């Protein structure tokens, strides 16, 4: 039997599958290039081109002198399939950055206690971030997470770390995302943060995320500048 797919793309798929299945875990190193070449009886150059492709696709990050580390949570792809945020800025070479506006512990008020299904005054961790693309503000994200979801929740730098990466690293497997899109007239300091005039119409998207035991692990309200981001969907 002959398989016509080149070896490097077969290896690429193999590693990708191991990342997606969780065999290679987020933040951990995958076997060295030498080890991979040995295991599968293939050339080092072949291994290198597979690794390069995986790096380009964002699945792994090369750390000089340390090895190749798993970086991409599987979540991102499936999310984008269902509901896309496409930046209207230059696709290539766009530099995304998050600016942390606030993070800290707050008590669940009436509405949040209903959303999370918890008692009032239950501690929640709140993270407010401004997402920038090429230094221009794209959206303001106001996120709540149960404070007791995992230890050390307040010691993470959320301006550089994705919340979903943190979830995955702490063994929280996400199952369901319920998002609702509506219109909203932005005003006051939120308008200032997004560099918009008062009462400018923006997208407002809420996202309620459940883990595998149906616990609400996240609630986010995003205000999105429609001049710079377009929301698309596919109906089937």
């Amino acid at each position, binding site marked *: 039997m002959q398989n016509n797919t080149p070896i490097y793309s077969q290896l690429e798929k193999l590693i990708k599958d191991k990342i997606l299945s969780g065999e290679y875990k987020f933040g951990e190193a995958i076997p060295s290039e030498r080890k991979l070449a040995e295991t599968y009886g293939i050339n080092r150059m072949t291994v290198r081109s597979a690794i390069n492709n995986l790096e380009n696709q964002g699945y792994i990050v090369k750390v000089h002198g340390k090895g190749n580390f798993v970086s991409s949570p599987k*979540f991102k792809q499936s999310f984008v399939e269902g*509901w896309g945020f496409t930046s209207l800025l230059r696709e290539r070479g766009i530099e995304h950055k998050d600016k942390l506006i606030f993070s800290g512990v707050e*008590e669940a008020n009436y509405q949040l206690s209903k959303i999370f299904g918890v008692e009032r005054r239950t501690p929640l961790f709140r993270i407010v971030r401004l997402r920038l693309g090429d230094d221009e503000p794209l959206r303001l994200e106001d996120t709540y997470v149960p404070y007791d979801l995992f230890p050390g929740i307040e010691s993470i730098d959320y301006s550089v770390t994705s919340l979903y990466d943190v979830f995955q690293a702490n063994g929280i497997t*996400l199952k369901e995302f319920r998002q*609702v*899109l509506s219109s909203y007239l932005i005003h006051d300091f939120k308008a200032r943060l997004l560099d918009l005039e008062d009462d400018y119409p923006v997208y407002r998207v809420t996202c309620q995320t459940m883990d595998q035991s149906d616990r609400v692990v996240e609630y986010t309200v995003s205000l999105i500048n429609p001049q710079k981001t377009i929301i698309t*969907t596919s*109906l*089937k």
Partner: protein
Amino acid sequence: MVRILKNKYTLTSENSIDKLMEYIDIHHLPPRERLPSERKLSELLGVSRPALHQAIFELINLGVLAQTPSDEIIIAEPKVLRNMWKMRSFTKTMRALGLTPKNKVIYAGMTEATKEEASALNLTLGSPVFRLHRLRCLDGTPMVIEVAALPAKLFPRLLEHDFSRASLYSVLEEEYGTIPLTQEQEFLIDFPNPADMQLLGIDAKEPLIVQLGRTADQNGVIIEYSVSKTLGSRFEFESISVIE
């Protein structure tokens, strides 16, 4: 023990909004019910008048409350939730929600494709298209303006139908054997133009959710380009993704 820190982000308006939401919920105030006077509410909720005023306008912004033409503050009708992943006719969806949809045809006719229509339908500028401009009403209130364009050479006899009664998609299916199967959509948020304001009976400050949709049939052929403008105060769009 968790120490709750005072922080700078929580705004006083968030507290008053929360109190007002709780008040509306626990009193089960029905749609169109008038809110008590600001003076009375401010006493009931223990919230200052300016903070309450701000909270009321935030809840109008969110579509929980509404302002009548005579400036009374009332409980809004709940927003209609439309799904963002399934192809379903507007009429059928609204009936399933217990609402009575009615269509008014503003224009129906054979005409020439605009630049936008031509590019979406893979036609050249000025190609013949059937254009259907409808105003969709729910329970008698105008809520959605929809302009659909279809290539005339695929559907040459659409003019024979009265689309204030007939469903466009049913005609395509029954008469032409074309099943509208998938639709790629883009969402925009915008203010109404003067024509929108007149048709929907709204003022210039009411945001619209605009959907640009390209519909494909069972063979992947692009059969329709549509622009829908929906009242932002009355509709929201839901997407549920489940990871298997």
